[in-house]
């Protein structure tokens, strides 16, 4: 790989990362909206649960690749909690909420 190839590649990855940042901001907004509308102890609807899962899954797979390791880790934990824990349990829902808040915080820092 020549030096110019490397430069071109870095530029492409950087451009992609900037677009990913923009998407992260939108996802953080979506998750924040779900949390704001959190009705007592849980999201209002299946659509809200789906938004959380979607944001966590899509971010878990890519954040670390773009250098956001901590956000990637939280996303993995959030996705795992959403998929494997008993969400009828108040404790599990509390944990999901905590992870979702952390997700918003880290996603907005990027």
């Amino acid at each position, binding site marked *: 790989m020549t030096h110019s190839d490397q430069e071109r590649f870095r530029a492409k990855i950087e451009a992609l990362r900037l677009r990913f940042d923009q998407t992260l901001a939108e996802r953080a907004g979506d998750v924040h909206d779900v949390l704001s509308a959190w009705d007592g102890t849980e999201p209002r609807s299946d659509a809200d649960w789906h938004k959380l899962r979607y944001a966590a899954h899509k971010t*878990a797979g890519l954040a670390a690749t773009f250098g956001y390791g901590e956000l990637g880790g939280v996303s993995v934990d959030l996705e795992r909690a959403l998929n494997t824990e008993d969400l009828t349990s108040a404790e599990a829902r509390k944990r999901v909420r905590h992870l979702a808040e952390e997700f918003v915080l880290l996603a907005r820092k990027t």
Partner: protein
Amino acid sequence: MRILAVDDDPFVLELLGDALEISGFDKVVLRSNPEDAYGLLEAGEPFDCILLDIQMPGLDGIELCRRLRELEAHAETPVLMVTAMLDKQYINAAFAAGANDYITKPFDVMEVGLRVSRAIEIHQAEKMRALLEAEAYEAELDLHDQISLFEVSRLADKPTIVNYFRQIARSGAPHSCVAIGIRNLDAFQALGRAATEEVIRQFARTIEERMGDENYLCSYVAPGTCICLIQGRERSFDVLSRVVIEDALEYKTRGTAAASVRPEIAASRPVRGRVFGQFDPETAIETVIAELSEDAGVVTPPAAARPSRSSAA
């Protein structure tokens, strides 16, 4: 090298494309819709490696892998699953569906090219090994072997049939011997080992079926040649007429590697063994084989060893 990457996430797809391009893969086809990707594969588009996301809406990566394995063009194309760490529960299913390896998301962009290159190298090495094995397989075919005839009953090696012949002769029971062979075996050999084995196997089965419940033994004594020894009158061999066996063989080899050649059968005249050990079984066997090689009945065995024939009996 042509690579196909399928992922519903546009970022992952673009990243895979860039990573593969920078790794030297000049033709990378990206598809976000798995149905579209299957359409390309089904249309016979050639690819040297395929990357599939596992979790995709509609047709997931595991099902797509299973389907593409049913396509002749991609039955062996290397397939790498690109999967989130949490999808590891699906890895076994992916391998069962025909995947060769997997890359875990998040991935190192520089690692993607290396993993794909490695998968292609392994595949090519495997193809080469299979090719060399196939060549060796063809080269090693020894038509004197008992080629996969173990499933044919009443098949014995030559010493056994000679002993059997001798025992019957001593008992004084009537017995007869005949040689029967595939006259155009070389035409099947030209088609390859699979065709040759198939025609010989079906040849032995046909003899077995035609002889039915007769008290006989059969031996594969020379390339494409069997001798049959029967404890009984030589007319028992009437069931082994050339035309009947040719028709049966042609029918049995339909749809096999041997289908393109019409088998031609040669048969010796039956030799009736003399009673009380006056006739050497080995000479009888050599006589019927020699007669067969001279295309049935034109050879006159040496007078001293000449066995009695049904016509002379």
